[in-house]
């Protein structure tokens, strides 16, 4: 039986890639503003997914607090480009700063939790995400609490403000392409191979001379930096952010889209974002049953296709991986 992934691999990657980029580039005028907005949402989730995929898919570290870095990036930009402190630093100046802030957050979380594995790591990162959300919610003098930050400046390209869904779409598309390219290069680098070794068998990797602590820290830092960029873009696009934008559900959604798409696989993450963030939008008519079917879909997916829609080629099949401790 041929899986969709196997069929896709028959097409030369360059052809496939150009076809995808071309069709993505001509979409907005065809679909109009509403769907451009939705596609922008999907794009932001793609960036987050590509970033979390570095941590979970490449390095095998289960992070449930990824939203914290998204929040750091978003609040980082919003504070410096809104009436909150009356400061209006340009977007393009703040973007690298937000990336750096989120990366610093990743390193900060990484250091204490490096010794943990598996479920313990998952739960500590979840706690970290919640701590950040509670702080955003309560540190009124800085974050304006639950009232959020309003009137955040849009970015400018030359003299043109990026302030409608179609313009945003192209900016986000560029971001997604850059993120996918970076992640792909990382995956095929010395670092990426070290991560894979660590993911498949940490102890064997350590014996082979891979500095586990260093590579774990690197995974956390790099993964977080993607979320920082995504956060800055999110804040600038929404124009207003609130602590509830950064709830655990975001982390869970991002994790789910990675798993639905196929862990460790960048095309998988992209497909996962389309399915997971786009599908509920298609199902909007059935409002009430939207999240209900989303939950059921996750369960069904895990039972029938646990390795995702487009699994990574360089990975042990999930069924063969032994559960530990058994």
């Amino acid at each position, binding site marked *: 039986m041929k899986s969709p992934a196997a069929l896709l691999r028959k097409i030369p990657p360059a052809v496939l890639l150009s076809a995808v980029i071309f069709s993505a580039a001509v979409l907005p005028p065809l679909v109009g503003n509403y769907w451009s907005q939705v596609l922008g949402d999907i794009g932001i989730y793609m960036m987050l997914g590509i970033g979390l995929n570095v941590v979970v898919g490449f390095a095998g570290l289960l992070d449930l607090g990824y939203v914290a870095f998204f929040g750091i990036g978003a609040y980082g930009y919003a504070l410096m480009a809104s009436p909150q402190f009356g400061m209006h630093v340009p977007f393009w100046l703040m973007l690298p700063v937000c990336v750096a802030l989120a990366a610093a957050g990743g390193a900060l979380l990484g250091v204490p939790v490096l010794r943990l594995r598996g479920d313990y790591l998952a739960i500590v990162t979840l706690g970290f995400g919640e701590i950040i959300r509670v702080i955003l919610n*309560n540190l009124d003098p800085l974050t304006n609490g639950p009232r959020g930050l309003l009137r955040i400046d849009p970015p400018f390209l030359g003299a043109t403000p990026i302030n409608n869904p179609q313009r945003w779409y192209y900016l986000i598309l560029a971001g997604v392409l850059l993120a996918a390219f970076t992640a792909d290069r990382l995956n095929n680098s010395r670092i990426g191979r070290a991560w894979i070794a660590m993911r498949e068998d940490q102890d064997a990797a350590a014996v082979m001379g891979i500095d586990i602590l260093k590579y774990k820290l690197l995974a956390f830092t790099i993964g977080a930096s993607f979320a920082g960029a995504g956060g800055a873009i999110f804040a600038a696009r929404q124009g207003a952010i609130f602590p509830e934008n950064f709830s655990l559900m975001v982390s869970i959604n991002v994790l789910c889209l990675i798993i639905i798409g196929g862990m460790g696989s960048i095309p998988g993450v992209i497909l996962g974002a389309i399915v997971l963030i786009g599908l509920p939008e298609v199902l909007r008519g059935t409002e009430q049953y939207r999240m209900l079917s989303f939950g059921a879909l996750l369960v069904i997916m*895990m039972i029938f296709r646990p390795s995702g829609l487009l699994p990574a080629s360089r990975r042990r099949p999930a069924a063969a991986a032994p559960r530990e401790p058994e």
Partner: protein
Amino acid sequence: MEAFFSAAILCDQLINGLTIGGIYALIALGYTLVYGILFMINFAHGEIFMFGSFAGYAALTFLLQYGFTEQRPLASILAAFLAAMVVSALLGTILERIAYRPLRRASRLAPLISAIGASIFLQNVMLIIIKGRMQVYPDLLHETFFEIGWFNISNFQIMIILGSFFLMAGLYIFIQRTRTGRAMRAVAEDRSAAALMGIDVNRIIMITFVIGSALAAAAGVMVGMYYTQINHMMGFIPGIKAFTAAVLGGIGNVPGAMLGGLFLGLAEAFGVLFMPAQYKDVIAFALLVLVLIFRPRGILGEVVSEKV
């Protein structure tokens, strides 16, 4: 130095801590039992607790309609507990059968995601049932306070503290003294060896879910009566905190979960004396991070070494 807090405040917080700690402990037991046997975090456990709370609510409103509660308030409350425990136990079993059992041989991530999916599913089922409205528990016991020395304790708090200790003691005796309890410990120790000794592993796993879910349901009814308002999202925070409690005590360890729950409840109750109340939720997570860094196996930790 002058006493910073009066004895009365400290006593109040002690009672509050024991009350909320008892609830955390009951929920934490479900996490710890399942983790001890399957090595998975049952992420949907908070929703089982939520369903229990609603089942108790349904039972109480039903009895109230027929005027039964006025004559026999205590019997009605027992009936509510029973109804909640039965509904949740059933739900836990179904969950295990549908969402977890097919994944027993899958990688570790699969059951976790499946549990998250089940949790979202259950939340939205309840959202549809209650049409998004918050429900208010019928007030049967009429909260009254007793003053005993410095202690100022309400009948609800007495019920919760006694009830949770009673259930925990019952569970401990069940696990230590009965044949099924021994089988549970054997399965937790080594599943395949237990199977070779003639233990029906699937049955034991089912029983584990039944017990864990029933305890969470009891906690759900207690929370409903204590805080009066319930909604479809109520499982989330207590679920996470109870998991924290289970980790604090040493996950997979039954007395540890009890101790962890009480410890967390007391830490929160006394913590609010030192910091603004809205940071209460941070206490749990900060404690969790600290414990995992300095004593990853929890207070009463044993086992849980990751296999090489």
